[in-house]
């Protein structure tokens, strides 16, 4: 089962080096996993990602995968919800189940001293959930409570309006928690269907970090996932970003307007992705003071924070941003964002800005590997993106190879001020929806 192992030395700034030794293993049952052994603390963090996620909801069943995910920890095998949770608490193990459009994730950690019991319990939840009617009704009430809360939350209102206009009937166009109507209609059978459609062995990606050997991990993975079926529901079709430039105001009585803005973006495997990633860091990302933070916050005090994000999803791509300003100042913020978007598209960035972003990004990368849980999560993320284990060695080279010409070519091509759409929730003075 043991394929190969090699050490990765991350050059960190000038002198320091971080060592992350990623082993690629295949379990006796044929399931691949990545492992970093770290025996200094007696616990293991496991991260599992199932491709697909809530976008696999069947027609008319929006919210089924989300509700099913909430029920995984609410009873399995011969245990009801309370018996299951009592057993988990007695082991001091933690299992987190989360779902988003493109994936369902399991983050678990458990102590070395009771690892086998913790794994058996997690296996029972993943492979043999009960979906008892009383648990279904109880968690459904929690989901409906969350939907009601979202309807009064300006950020959620903005997201719903924006994605609905951008993606329409595609799963990306609606919230994965579903609507009051669809969630109210979900049955036990829908839960079993969603489970069968999403939790399948051939869409699972696995990583582990901590106090465990490759051999023990192989056996553990077979226990955990070996009894899951293969072949999930078909993945959704590709969809283009359907919003055109302009402004949508969603009136809401609250003192500060919140804006979500954006246009189409770039695929993760585009050869210009690193140039776009650097450009985004300079425009509105974390790290050195971004251009938008400088203009909107530092110079004018119009907001507490403004950020932009490259969002390459499995079936579409976006370049998004978010900002909040008092109702009487949002109009100024929008004008500034449009102007900066245009200026960068036309003039590009400077060599100094590029150098500062590179230094930050290459220096910050090794600092991400700071704990069993974070490393497990990074390794699964790499598998989801189809990257090899040695990506961690070369990643900073990819960043350093980007030239000013690359970044400014991408800026001219991909930053399209005329295509930027702002969805604004609040009572922004002097702003109205465009046609």
């Amino acid at each position, binding site marked *: 089962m043991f394929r190969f192992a090699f050490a990765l030395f991350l050059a960190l700034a000038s002198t*320091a080096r971080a060592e992350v030794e990623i082993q690629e293993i295949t379990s006796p049952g044929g399931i691949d996993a990545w492992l970093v052994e770290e025996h200094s603390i007696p616990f293991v963090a496991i991260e599992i990602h199932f491709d697909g996620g809530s976008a696999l909801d069947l027609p008319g069943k929006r919210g089924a995968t989300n509700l099913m995910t909430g029920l995984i920890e609410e009873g399995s095998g011969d245990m009801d919800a309370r018996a299951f949770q009592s057993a988990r608490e007695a082991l001091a193990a933690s299992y987190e189940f989360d779902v988003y459009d493109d994936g369902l994730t399991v983050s678990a950690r458990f102590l070395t001293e009771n690892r086998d019991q913790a794994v058996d319990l997690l296996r029972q939840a993943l492979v043999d959930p009960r979906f008892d009617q009383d648990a279904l009704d109880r968690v459904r009430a929690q989901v409906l*409570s969350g939907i009601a809360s979202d309807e009064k939350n300006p950020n959620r209102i903005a997201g719903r309006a924006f994605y609905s206009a951008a993606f329409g009937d595609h799963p990306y166009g609606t919230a994965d928690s579903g609507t009051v109507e669809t969630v109210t209609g979900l049955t036990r059978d829908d839960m079993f269907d969603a489970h069968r459609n999403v939790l399948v062995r051939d869409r699972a990606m696995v990583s582990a970090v901590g106090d465990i050997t490759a051999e023990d991990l192989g056996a553990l993975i077979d226990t955990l996932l070996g009894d899951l079926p293969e072949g999930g529901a078909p993945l959704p079709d590709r969809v283009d970003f359907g919003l055109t430039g302009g402004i949508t105001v969603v009136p809401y009585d609250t*003192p500060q307007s919140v804006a979500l803005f954006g246009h189409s973006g770039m695929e993760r495997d585009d050869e210009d992705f690193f140039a776009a990633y650097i450009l985004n860091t300079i425009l509105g990302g974390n790290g050195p003071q971004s251009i938008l933070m400088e203009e909107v916050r530092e110079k*004018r005090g119009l907001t507490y924070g403004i950020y932009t994000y490259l969002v390459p999803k499995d079936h579409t791509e976006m370049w998004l941003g978010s900002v909040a300003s*008092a109702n009487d100042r949002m109009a100024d913020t929008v004008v500034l964002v449009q102007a900066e978007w245009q200026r960068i598209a036309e003039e590009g960035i400077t060599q100094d800005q590029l150098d500062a972003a590179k230094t930050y990004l290459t220096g910050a990368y*090794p*600092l991400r590997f700071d704990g069993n849980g974070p490393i497990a999560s990074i390794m699964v993320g790499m598998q989801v993106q189809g990257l090899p284990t040695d990506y961690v060695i070369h990643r900073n080279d990819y960043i350093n190879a980007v030239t000013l010409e690359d970044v400014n070519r991408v800026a001219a091509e991909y930053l399209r001020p005329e295509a930027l759409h702002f969805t604004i929730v609040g009572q922004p003075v002097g702003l109205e929806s465009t046609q």
Partner: protein
Amino acid sequence: MRRLIAALCLAAAPLAATGEEVTTFTLDNGMDVVVIEDHRAPVVVHMVWYRSGSADEPPGSSGVAHFLEHLLFKATDTMESGELSEVVAANGGSDNAFTSYDYTAYFQRVAADRLELMMRMEADRMNNLRLTEEDIVTERNVILEERNQRTENNAGALAREQLRAAQYLNHRYGLPIIGWKHEMESLDMQDALSFYDLYYSPNNAILVVAGDVEPQEVLTLAETYYGVIPPEEHLPERFRPEEPPQTAERRLTYVDPRVSQPYLTRSYLAPERDAGAQEDAAALVYLSELLGGSPFTSALGVALQFDSQTAVYSGAGYDAMSLDDTTFNVTVVPAEGVTLSEAEAAMDQVIADFLANPIDLDQMERIRTQLRASEIYALDDVEGIARRYGAALTQGLTIEDVQAWPGILQAVSAEDVKAVAEKVLQRRQSVTGWIVPSEEEAL
């Protein structure tokens, strides 16, 4: 110029219970130094904590501690505005700061070989800040937008503010950390500088360095950069107006159409972890878990979410870390069709039953196991451990208290929990809030 260096070196104190390596020093000017070793990765977290937070502000200037925290990223004698963060980023690091009731802290996370640079810059802004009127005006707008974002746009946050104001009659914990809006609007240069000049001093500060470092190296650097800053001679004794005993229950109703569904929350005035006396606080940690920790196994969860379906959510919370009296909180979100008064009656019944009946010893043991395990999991997060020490030392605790805490938690008995529950869970020392979208919902 270096002053006399006679640092007091306490022996490294490896923790039997948790395994973290901690060494402490005190510089000649009174600055405390805590070094936590974690050699798994070549990374360091560098933090400076000041023993001054929003509860130390002068009357009329609420929010000035947090305002000053923002202003500390402006220019000094030798650095331009924003330069510190730029230098940190240029070295691949991240930096930030946070303000609470009892402390203000600044931190950077960076490659371990950049520690000296971090110290040089952090020491510089302890003493050499140079603010302009433009900084004041612009940054005041930023904190007002921060308040908009965190509080004004959030009905739950506005309700919590009112509840806390009702809970603390006399103590500054009743004022929001970010400040009352009308007082924030008038914060000026003088407010900021008075707070800065008095409190940003080595004898009011704690240096916490955690990660891939050697204690002696850290001490040498600390002496070089922080040791040369003169102590503040007029640093006042830390005195806060204390809460009087609460003898009458307080109730309030917060109405806001942005509330999606009604809920109720109650806070009880409760003791916090005190130096050399953390037993009551440890028992309260168990009480909050037993009463409203896990929705599946706690008293409130089982009674209200399983047995009776009265609530869609229930929970209890207790923050043991506080310089002065803290609160113990319970919250219930009623299920569809259940009124707030029905939900509150059900909650009170659970509390009464809890006080009247013996404690479930199996549940007690599950909580004990989880608390022990959390110490093992905590070792994976050196920044979290660094925060523990910084928070403890700014909130009246000692290194010994921090290190004794896991053992004290393990030693709590059911009788201890019962005793502290009877002392704390009394309605005459509580504030109950109903949070509703309209007056009708509060009937």
